[in-house]
């Protein structure tokens, strides 16, 4: 063991001990507490409140409500971070294209058959997670990442070229992804635009009406709780995340020979 490594280990141990000491002195209060923090109580009680329409977020699920309504801006920019990472990766891979001359190899026939079966089953599960995002745990990102399993499996089991031969090319996925992102953005400023047209005060990321902004997305449609903008956000996010992952995995599975033709 070298001297530098010993230094690193010792400093890390000191770091851990000081953290643990501070926590034991009550740096975080009693863990876990009996009552949640007061802000959390407000979130919990105003997540769904049909009797006070100006102080609610119209969904049963508090996490989705926080993610897309109370703190919608964070999630919007989080999507932007994810988008930025993908764009940066595309920028690294700019000019790389996949030739479809070689045949895809893939795995054994047993795996292929079962994967073909699951390609029907899994998107159904994912779509239900996305549609019920405001009622049960789940939402756009969760559904998108569940649906990604299909893409991973197809790419791994059948081979990348098979996917491309089936017609799922890079521009199409990019199109899908951009549509999802633009949908998120338009949902965010939707009420502001509507407010400009009919002359009502409205806020960015507004979902339900507020005391001084009397305009809202529909909360119910035919006795079904749709949760206003939550459903729209979840759907667009689902599309955007799935397409984003598909794009990334496609870039990853391009073979080295193909890449090296363009990059160094």
């Amino acid at each position, binding site marked *: 063991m070298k001297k530098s490594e010993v230094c690193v280990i010792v400093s890390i141990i000191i770091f851990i001990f000081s953290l643990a000491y501070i926590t034991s002195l009550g740096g975080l209060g009693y863990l876990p507490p009996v009552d949640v923090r007061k802000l959390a109580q407000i979130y919990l009680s105003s997540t769904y409140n049909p009797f006070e329409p100006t102080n609610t977020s119209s969904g049963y*699920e508090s*996490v*989705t409500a926080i993610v897309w309504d109370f703190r919608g801006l964070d999630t919007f920019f989080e999507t932007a971070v994810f988008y930025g990472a993908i764009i940066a990766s595309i920028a690294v891979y700019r000019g790389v294209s996949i030739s479809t001359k070689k045949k895809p190899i893939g795995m054994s026939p047993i795996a292929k058959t079962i994967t073909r079966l699951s390609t029907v089953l899994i998107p159904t599960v994912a779509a239900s*997670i996305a549609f019920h995002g405001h009622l049960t*745990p*789940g*939402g756009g*990102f*969760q559904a998108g*990442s*569940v649906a*990604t*399993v299909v893409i*991973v499996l197809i790419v791994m089991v059948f081979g990348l070229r098979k996917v491309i031969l089936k017609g799922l090319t890079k521009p199409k996925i990019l199109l899908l992804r951009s549509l999802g992102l633009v949908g998120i953005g338009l949902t965010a400023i939707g009420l502001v635009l509507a407010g400009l047209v009919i002359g009502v005060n409205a806020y960015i990321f507004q979902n339900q009406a507020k005391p001084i902004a009397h305009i809202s997305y529909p909360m119910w449609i035919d006795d079904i709780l749709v949760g206003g903008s939550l459903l729209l956000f979840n759907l667009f996010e689902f599309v955007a995340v799935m397409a984003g*992952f598909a794009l990334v*995995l496609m870039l*990853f*599975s391009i073979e*080295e020979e193909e890449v090296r033709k363009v990059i160094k």
Partner: protein
Amino acid sequence: MIEIFTLAFLMLVSIASVIAAFKAIIEKDMVRAIVYSAIQSAMYALIFYVLMAPDIVLVYIPVSVGITPAILLFVTKKTERYDGD
């Protein structure tokens, strides 16, 4: 009674996660390290489940058990399998 078992479960899981993380970092073979980190992620997912965060579990399992090992395996396949000496 049921709480005691839940808590025992939580303790077991957190200790297993420490061992898995340690082996993942120490291991020289990257594939093995990735598999160990998958164990660690599964343990964390259980912690999230017991701590009543189903949303987090739904997003964490795909990301940490599914996508991150896939990415790391892609990287390992395209680079070197063994690290260090």
